């Protein structure tokens, strides 16, 4: 497939598209392949998945500025919405599909480990601030708390610019 063929096909698509750039020799691609297949079934009729082999279609990969695989790019209305590079968890890929389906881009979702670690640190710091009456620790506790939940806040989601 040439770059222009890819662009034409993309613009003709009436559904959001996730482009999965992979290669047969890429181990992380083999790991994420089944996850993409499962999500493709879950989002059938709402989001299309196109798999692009970077070995056989290097022109498309170059046109998309792909520097590492696997790369997952969400397109909506022919325009790139967001992309993820490298092996991803199912929840992150699911988030990518949701973003493509809704057209709303959100910041990367925190992992459970990050959320628990930051929230626990915020609680410990808050307790320490209360015990010692130190304002600076209240501020640090608040920052730690925000860093643990920022991806859940409405401000972390934005619609793509026109």
């Amino acid at each position, binding site marked *: 497939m040439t770059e222009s063929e890819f662009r034409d096909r993309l613009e003709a698509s009436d559904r959001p598209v996730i482009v999965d750039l992979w290669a047969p020799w890429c181990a992380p691609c083999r790991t994420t392949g089944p996850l993409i297949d499962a999500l493709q079934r879950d989002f059938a009729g709402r989001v299309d998945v196109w798999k692009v082999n970077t070995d056989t279609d290097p022109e498309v990969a170059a046109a998309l500025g792909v520097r590492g695989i696997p790369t997952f790019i969400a397109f909506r209305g022919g325009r790139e919405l967001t992309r993820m590079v*490298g092996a991803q968890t199912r929840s992150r890929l699911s988030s990518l599909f949701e973003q493509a389906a809704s057209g709303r881009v959100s910041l990367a979702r925190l992992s459970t*480990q990050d959320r628990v*670690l930051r929230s*626990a640190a915020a609680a*410990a710091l808050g307790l*320490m601030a209360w015990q010692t009456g130190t304002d600076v*620790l209240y501020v640090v506790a608040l920052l730690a708390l925000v860093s643990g939940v920022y991806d859940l806040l409405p401000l972390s989601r934005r619609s793509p610019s026109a």
Partner: protein
Amino acid sequence: MQFINEAGWDRIARVIAGIVLLYLGWAGVVTGTVGTVFKFLGFLPLVTGLVGWCPAYSVFGIRTTKVQ
């Protein structure tokens, strides 16, 4: 995420170490110059643990987490 260079155990250890140092400093358990050092030094492991990225690791090419 790509920039993270600390494993989970590393991050937890840093956060605990940071909180302990801050407590010792700010609660007045340790006083004097050492206490003052603890008050501010504690932020270093705390922040690097919460973020998951250690600048010193980057400088020396160390990672305790697996490359993604």
